[in-house]
């Protein structure tokens, strides 16, 4: 094993950490937006991700059946579609359930948990209990090898790019768009925002739907990494929670930093220790830090 090989492995390991960071951030983002804006934790977050994943699977399936020639290009459109489906469903859920529960934040946990159960059973009944994987275009498979011995996973690159894009778009929208302005106004003073003519309930609904839409996109992206089943959401939500909790939930910056911290810790620990031990170590670290700083890494500091 010579130096250049070690260098390659070092680079690939660095990328492994980065791509885990992208995965965790994408998972947590939708949850964090909703929590930050409305103080609601969407327990069905994982299922919205699953919706996105199934959208990709169905698109892949339909492409294969009706337009095999489009196999190489369907994926980006399917990701947009995934956002759209999850967005619509999020809109609906907010309208039917969540908006009645803003006064009872804890109850939203239970109601959205109920939604997650119903969605799981829907997946099982209408799509089937088996795990599925879409047929991915070739440019998402394999590794990109700029030099021999240096294999950068293409799916990792894709998830990283998508995460950067989505995070950038969200940050930009929050700081520049009218929606962002409304969101910030509502977060800092809901009553006042209402009083000056911001339709806070509409802002809430839009935010909830956008959060769900991003979850759908995240789920879509993860079809390049894992498979999709009715209960996949349960796997996703666990990590999403940790990222958001650890980050402090008050700011998106917290979510970004926490995703980065968790990803790097875990990825390095996995490399130098063992897989299972790495998880235990990472989780224990999170617990210890949370015990010392229960409000998470970035807590908001305003007059309460």
């Amino acid at each position, binding site marked *: 094993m010579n130096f250049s090989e070690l260098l390659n492995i070092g680079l690939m*390991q660095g990328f492994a950490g980065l791509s885990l960071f992208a995965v965790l951030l994408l998972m947590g983002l939708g949850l964090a937006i909703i929590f930050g804006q409305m103080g609601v934790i969407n327990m069905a977050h994982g299922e919205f991700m699953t919706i996105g994943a199934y959208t990709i699977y169905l698109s892949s399936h339909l492409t294969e059946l009706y337009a095999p020639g489009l196999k190489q290009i369907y994926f980006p459109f399917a990701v947009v579609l995934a956002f759209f489906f999850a967005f619509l469903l999020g809109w609906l859920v907010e309208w039917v359930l969540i908006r009645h529960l803003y006064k009872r934040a804890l109850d939203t946990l239970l109601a959205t948990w109920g939604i997650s159960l119903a969605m799981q059973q829907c997946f099982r009944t209408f799509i089937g209990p088996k795990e*599925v994987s879409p047929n991915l275009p070739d440019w998402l498979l394999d590794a990109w090898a700029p030099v021999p011995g240096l294999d950068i996973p293409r799916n990792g690159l894709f998830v990283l790019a998508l995460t950067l894009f989505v995070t950038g778009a969200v940050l930009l929208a929050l700081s520049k768009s009218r929606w962002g302005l409304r969101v910030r106004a509502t977060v800092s003073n809901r009553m006042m925002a209402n009083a000056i003519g911001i339709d806070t309930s509409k802002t809430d609904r839009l935010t909830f739907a956008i959060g769900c839409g991003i979850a759908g996109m995240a789920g879509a992206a993860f079809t390049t*990494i894992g*498979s999709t089943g009715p209960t996949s959401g349960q796997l996703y939500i666990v990590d999403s929670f940790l990222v958001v909790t650890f980050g402090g939930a008050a700011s998106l910056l917290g979510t970004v930093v926490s995703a980065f911290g968790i990803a790097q810790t*875990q*990825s390095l620990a996995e490399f130098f220790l063992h897989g299972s031990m790495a998880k235990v170590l990472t989780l224990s670290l999170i617990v210890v830090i949370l015990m010392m700083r229960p409000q998470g890494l970035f807590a908001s500091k305003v007059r309460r």
Partner: protein
Amino acid sequence: MSEPKNPKDLKEKSAINSADELFVSSFDLHANNRRRFLQGMSALSILAMPGLSFSADKLPTDKVNTTKLAVTDTEVIVGQLHSSTGTMAISETGSIQAEQLAIDQINAMGGILGRKIKVIKEDGASDWPTFAEKAKKLLINDHCAAVFGCWTSASRKAVLPVFEKENGLLYYPTFYEGLEQSKNVFYTGQEATQQIIYSLDWAKKEKKAKTFFLIGSDYIWPRTSMKIARKHVENFQKGTIVGEEYYPLGSTNFGSLMNKIKLQKPDCIYAAVVGGSNVAFYKALKAAGITGAKQLLVTLAVTEDEMTGVGGDNFAGFYSSMKYFQSLTNDNNKKFVAAFKAKYGKNSVIGDVTQAGYLGPWLWKAACEKANSFDVDKVVAASPGIELKMAPEGYVKLDENHHLWSKSRIAMGMPDGTFKIVSESPSLIKPDPFPKGYQ
């Protein structure tokens, strides 16, 4: 099924009984055809097994059932205990279907000891305590004569005390870690040594593998399997283990693992990653440029069932070690596959555990008939030595230790998601749940 009314019926009946063992694979023929076919064959009357009951009349219920099991003159009740909901539903569906198929076929042939099998289905919901609760229900409330079920080791461990306490009978279909032998359980899948030693020897002999990298999901089956694998490689093959890694169940993050593999450059990756992790694992391999063309990989945990999720592309060129593959070409299997697809759709796939599940009801039937009774103690006593010639995997035999003698096979994954068998053990391998020298 009603009592036979005249001698002709009786004769037919005995003919059916006698012919079972030989021509079980004729199950899905039209009833009339089958009857005619069997009548023709009854002249041969060759017994596949010694001690098979041949009485012209069927035995009265108080003779075949002295322990208050749910057996009537026309019916015997059995339980089926799998997860049809929850995370394990994906895996267990195949077993549920295969057991049902076997029971339907047995009923179509007249049932067992003249009694039709009636199934009570219970859902373990992928939750071990629920398994225990339902097992109690099946044994204590429903007095099931036998139960076909469980998939994970955890669910089996949860129900085992119940079966031992209530003296029930469980047919367990999954390949598992061994280290267990209960009077009340028959294990129709492979125990660890059958699967592992053959595949390691194959890797060494055919692929000249000397260094191995062991990877598993973090629970008892992969850990025990890898323990056996390590002992075998180090003590018997004089090879080297260059890495041993376990990842939490459900983990989808294998980036760092890929780099470790690249660092160690093993001759063979030996994997027992299961469930959702399985898919992520093979996708990660593919994404890291580790493909079947460049790297030898043998897994203990990919059957046809998993392939739908993993995707043929990702597994192409890797090897799986099982006792059964759907692509087996013997006549038994062709008929089994045809019957299975006729019942469950032509897109359905059959994995190793599905086939093992299919054996359960047949093994039980053979044992009951040998014992001339449904009593658990008598069935257990009659079981060792029972042979099934109709098994889709080929001839199998039940050992005294309640495990099956069976062949081991290695198959290569194809891009279309099927398996091509590349190697088969020349003879049946004796089950050895407590292997000496591997502890």
